Structures are given as structure tokens and as C-alpha cells.
């Protein structure tokens, strides 16, 4: 009995064997190959890459399979591998204005240089179960995509939107939360990194809360673009940039109201979101939370959770959150025993006090006496 209460090596081995068996499903059906996952579940793969902070489709697909489709478990797998990789330095900033978009939309202008391009989107699909033809669109691909300047740059030209980086500021080095301790308050660069690793659902909820009055930022989707871009790295021993490969990105620039202050004329402000692969919901939510977190910068009153840096950043990482919530499964015998002892003691003291005190007079009796 006593031994059975405590776990043991055999229990763990058996549990893992059972898990692997469950994950295999019906052995009469073929096993899903990770390349099939990378190709057919690309949106899920993008999420695992984004929140796992590692751009590797094949690895993310393997993680999804090993995790039996549990996104957070897959993200944890990817992160635990990523952290063991050596770091050589930073790549050059990617120029998303030059990103040849597979998709590019703006909700602020009907037409704009380069035009709108719907691309591969679930928008405007009817959510009905169908088997769609997968042979692709009929129209020929655009051979040389037109120039597509960023919407925010168009606004910036007439100073209607805050400049980035702020006028007079030098280009700050990017922070890296995975290599440096997290200290509040954070720089915006660090905050953006934290947000891009954050849980999509959590950011979605926070972004939604700002639309419902909890720290409103009045956002407009200035521009959302999705496409593949080359990543370059400047190796110090070479002295010039070498391309490392191409990555697919989703970028969202949210445009927000700012009424101006005593020393700043009215101007639009920005919220920024960037994620790997096709991750539009994530990029949009991120840009809204980014803007909400800039409240102090614009002298706005901080009243809502989405505006509170410590609250948002400390709770948005799903690897941390799920780990700590689920750690409640671990034994807490010792602490519970301590609390059990305390509750018993408090109850005993309560009974002693009750026994010592003279019985409270019966209110009926007092009333009767008063009447008499």
C-alpha cells in the first residue's frame, strides 16, 4: 500500500510505452509522415515555429507528430532543442517593404501603390465542409510583382504617423530574452520578442479586450503582408552579407489613433506584429497588444490588463504557463500535510474558544423579558 502511493521507474516506463501506443492510433492505417504534416498542416507548423522561436518546418512538423497534435507540447519540444543550439550572431534586419507578398491587404486605403492582393486566406471562404479542388488558381501568377511600399511609409511621408525609430533615436541593438535575463521594464525590442513568442490564444484574448474597452487603442489594419524573404548574415571574417535561406513571414502594422499632447501634434501611432509562416491572427493580435503596451510612452492612463507590461509579458509565454499550471499534478504531499495540520489546529482552537465562551443569550428570551 505504502509503496503503491509513491510512483516509480516502472510506472514511468509503462506510461511512456502506453503514450507511444496511443499516439500511433490504428496500426492498420499508414503512419503520418512529418513531410505531410509540414505541407498539409502548414498553419499549425507556422504556429509551432513562431512560438517555438525556431524556423525549421521539418522539425516543427516532427514535434507536432511526437506531441500527438498538442501544439504547446510541440512548442516545448522545439524550444528545448533550440536552447541547445549555439548562437553565432544576429542576421541583418529583413526589409519587409521589399517582401514580395503572396498576400497584401490594407484596411485603411481602398487602393494604394502595388494594389491589394488577397492571396491564400480563409477570409471570404464559406465555412462548410467541402472537398476543394487543390490544383490552384486559374489566373496566371504575376511574373514580376509591382513595387509595394508600406502603407505606414506612405503616411510617414506626410508625418501623419510617428516615425520609426523615433526622430533622433539611434537604431537600438535587438534584445534577446533567451540569452539575457528578463528585467522589467523592458525595451520595446525585448517586448516585441516576447510577444512574438507569446501564446496566440492569450494575445488574441488581450487584443480582443482592448476592442471592448479595456485599454482601447482604436486600431486600423494599416497593412498585413505575407510572403517569403531572404535572410542574410554578415560573418565578421567575410566582411559581407551571405544569404542563409528564405523564410516565410506574416507582418501586421496596426495604425492607431493618438490625439496629440501639449508638445506633440496629433498623429497616428503604430503597433507591430511579426510571425513566422502564415500566422495572421497572431501578427494582428501582437500588433494590438504591442500598441496597448506603449501606453506609458504616449502618456495614456494605464487601466487595463493589456496595457500592463509585467502582467502581459509574465503570463503570455505558454511554455511557462502550461508548465506551471500542470505542475499542480506533481505531488504536494508535504505542503498539503502542513496545511492539513494547520486546518486541524485552527479547528481545534475554534472548538476550544466556543467551549470557553459563555453560551450566547437566546434573542427570543431577551425579547420575551423586554416585553414582560
Amino acid at each position, binding site marked *: 500500500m505504502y509503496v503503491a502511493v509513491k510512483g516509480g521507474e516502472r510506472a514511468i516506463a509503462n506510461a511512456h510505452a502506453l503514450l507511444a501506443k496511443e499516439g500511433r492510433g490504428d496500426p492498420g492505417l499508414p503512419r503520418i509522415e512529418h513531410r505531410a504534416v509540414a505541407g498539409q498542416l502548414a498553419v499549425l507548423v507556422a504556429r509551432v515555429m513562431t512560438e517555438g522561436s525556431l524556423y525549421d518546418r521539418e522539425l516543427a512538423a516532427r514535434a507536432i507528430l511526437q506531441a500527438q497534435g498538442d501544439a504547446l507540447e510541440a512548442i516545448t519540444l522545439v524550444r528545448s532543442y*533550440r536552447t541547445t543550439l*549555439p548562437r553565432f550572431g544576429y542576421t541583418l534586419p529583413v526589409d519587409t517593404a521589399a517582401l514580395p507578398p503572396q498576400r497584401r491587404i490594407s484596411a485603411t486605403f481602398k487602393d494604394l501603390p502595388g494594389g491589394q492582393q488577397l492571396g491564400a486566406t480563409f477570409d471570404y471562404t464559406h465555412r462548410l465542409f467541402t472537398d476543394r479542388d487543390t490544383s490552384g488558381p486559374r489566373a496566371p501568377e504575376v511574373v514580376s510583382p509591382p513595387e509595394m511600399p508600406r502603407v505606414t511609409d506612405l503616411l510617414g511621408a506626410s508625418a501623419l504617423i510617428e516615425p520609426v525609430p523615433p526622430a533622433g533615436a539611434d537604431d537600438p541593438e535587438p534584445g534577446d530574452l533567451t540569452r539575457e535575463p528578463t528585467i522589467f521594464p523592458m525595451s520595446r525590442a525585448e517586448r516585441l520578442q516576447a510577444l512574438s513568442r507569446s501564446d496566440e490564444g492569450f494575445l488574441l484574448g488581450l487584443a480582443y479586450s482592448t476592442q471592448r474597452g479595456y485599454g482601447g487603442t482604436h486600431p486600423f489594419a494599416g497593412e498585413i503582408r505575407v510572403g517569403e524573404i531572404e535572410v542574410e548574415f554578415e560573418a565578421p571574417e567575410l566582411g559581407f552579407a551571405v544569404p542563409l535561406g528564405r523564410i516565410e513571414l506574416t507582418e501586421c502594422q496596426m495604425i492607431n489613433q493618438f490625439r496629440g499632447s501639449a508638445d506633440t501634434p496629433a498623429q497616428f501611432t503604430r503597433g507591430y506584429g511579426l510571425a513566422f509562416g502564415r500566422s495572421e491572427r497572431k501578427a494582428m493580435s501582437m500588433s494590438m497588444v504591442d500598441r496597448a503596451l506603449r501606453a506609458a510612452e504616449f502618456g495614456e492612463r494605464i487601466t487595463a490588463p493589456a496595457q500592463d507590461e509585467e502582467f502581459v509579458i509574465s503570463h503570455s509565454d505558454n511554455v511557462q504557463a502550461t508548465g*506551471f499550471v500542470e*505542475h499542480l499534478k506533481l505531488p504536494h504531499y*508535504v*505542503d498539503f500535510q502542513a496545511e492539513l495540520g494547520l486546518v486541524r489546529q485552527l479547528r481545534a482552537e475554534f472548538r476550544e474558544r466556543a467551549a470557553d465562551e459563555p453560551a450566547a443569550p437566546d434573542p427570543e428570551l431577551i425579547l420575551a423579558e423586554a416585553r414582560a
Partner: protein
Amino acid sequence: MSTGLDGYNIGYLDEQTKRMIRRTLLKAVAIPGFQVPFASREVPMPRGWGTGGVQVTAAIIGPDDVLKVIDQGADDTANAVSIRSFFAAVAGVRTTTRTDEATIIQTRHRIPETPLADGQTIVYQVPGPEPLRFLERRETETRRLHALADYGLMYVKLYEDIAKYGHIATTYDYPVMVNGRYLMAPSPIPSFDNPKMHRSPALQLFGAGREKRIYAVPPYTDVESLGFEDHPFEPQRFDEPCAICGSTGVYLDEVITNDKGGSMFVCSDTDHCERAAAALTGADPQEVIA
């Protein structure tokens, strides 16, 4: 030495990370009880399952070390087994369940009953490194309170306990003052274990992975559990001995034996219990647990 895990460094973490953690540890030892921020890495366990302790152990463990891992005082709880087998695989070290044989003891929620000795290191897994967190939720603010040694909040909380219940009503993670300067969370060990921290000959290291903090108590350092002159700190006590080995003055787990309210009390420290029971019968300790 082969680690048994292809593609991973000895002790899992890469050497740069180990160096970063060791630097953090040096700072932590130099300022007893002060929480040093560190760039906590992911490890292959979930956050909240001992990732801070695992990183500290990974950074200090070497081929000559003998590792003991306990959870709730026991060597055979699933999480302790899991972490022990992780280090056996990635660091290739010898493991033990005997407190006196271990050079490094990683623990969750307990300090072993067998007194720790000079040269031993105990690594605590810490869920919440900030003792003031539930009184002041902001990190920027608690950092300031520590800088000013402004611990009034905690004393007020303990005073309110006394006003309400007649005694302090904190039973685990009972706050301690280290070296007369920093208020420190001892991790959720029962207050029963607090006195063992005071001037312990062992090096005590604390790792909070999710919260990204490391702190330390060097050997022979004062660790005083908070209290008042008229209401001094009182660790919890048990009235009965262990039902298996008969030990008294040890921490006990209550094991429910039936659905009629029946229960028995047994040692939480399995190593201590096995050896005490063996001493009773004169049998080999391994046979007692079999």
C-alpha cells in the same frame, strides 16, 4: 565521456550556458539571499517541474559527483525518478538515494532528515522566488523593497495572522531572513525544515527556472525564520512517530488507509525511513522496501 544522448552536450546545457549560470551562482553566493536574474533556458521538462533546479544542477555537476534527487522527501516519486534518470543519461553521473553518499542533492519541497555535511550541495527547485510576491505583485516594486530592505509588508502579514488566528498561519515556504539582510523564500519546504537551513555546513543553491532567478545561501550562513519576540517562529511538530520505522522528530506524510477516516503517518524522507527501519530489524535496507 559519452553522454548517451547523441547531439547533446554533457549535462544537456551547452558550455556557454553553464558558464553563464556559474557566474550567476557566484554572484548569488556573494550576496546571500539576493535573487540574481539569469537568462533561464528551456530544459526538456515543463516549466514548474524543476527547470531551475535542473539548470543549476546541470551547471555544477561533474563526472565525480554523486547525485540524489528527491521530491516530497522521497527518492521514488515519479518526478524525482525522472530527473535522476535524466542526469544519469545526459551527465553519466553516479546516482544514489543515500543522503550521506550524495555530493549534490536536488530537492523539491524537503530538506533530508540526515544532517547535511561540509562539501555537500543542496539544490532547491523553486516555484516562486519572491517572498513578497503575494503581498506586492509587481517585480519593479519588490526589487525596490529588497534594495531598501523594506520588509514591513511581510511583518504586517505575519502580525495579521496573529491578530486573526492567535499564531502565524504560514506552514510552508515560510519566509526567512538571510545573513540579516535579504528576505528569502526557502521554496515550499515545510516550516518544519526551516531550522535545518540555519548555519548549514552545506552550500544551498536555489533555482527558479520559470521566474528566471537564482539565489544562494553559502555554508554556515545565518538563516532566521521570521517571528516576533512574543510570537517567535514555531515549526510544525508531529505528535506520533513514523508507523514504519518509529522515528520521531521527523516530517511525516499522512497515508489514508481506508474510507472510514483511517490513516497512518510515515516518514516523508524515504532514505531516512529505510535506514531507520533497517536499524530496527537489523536487515539490509534494500530488503525493507522490496
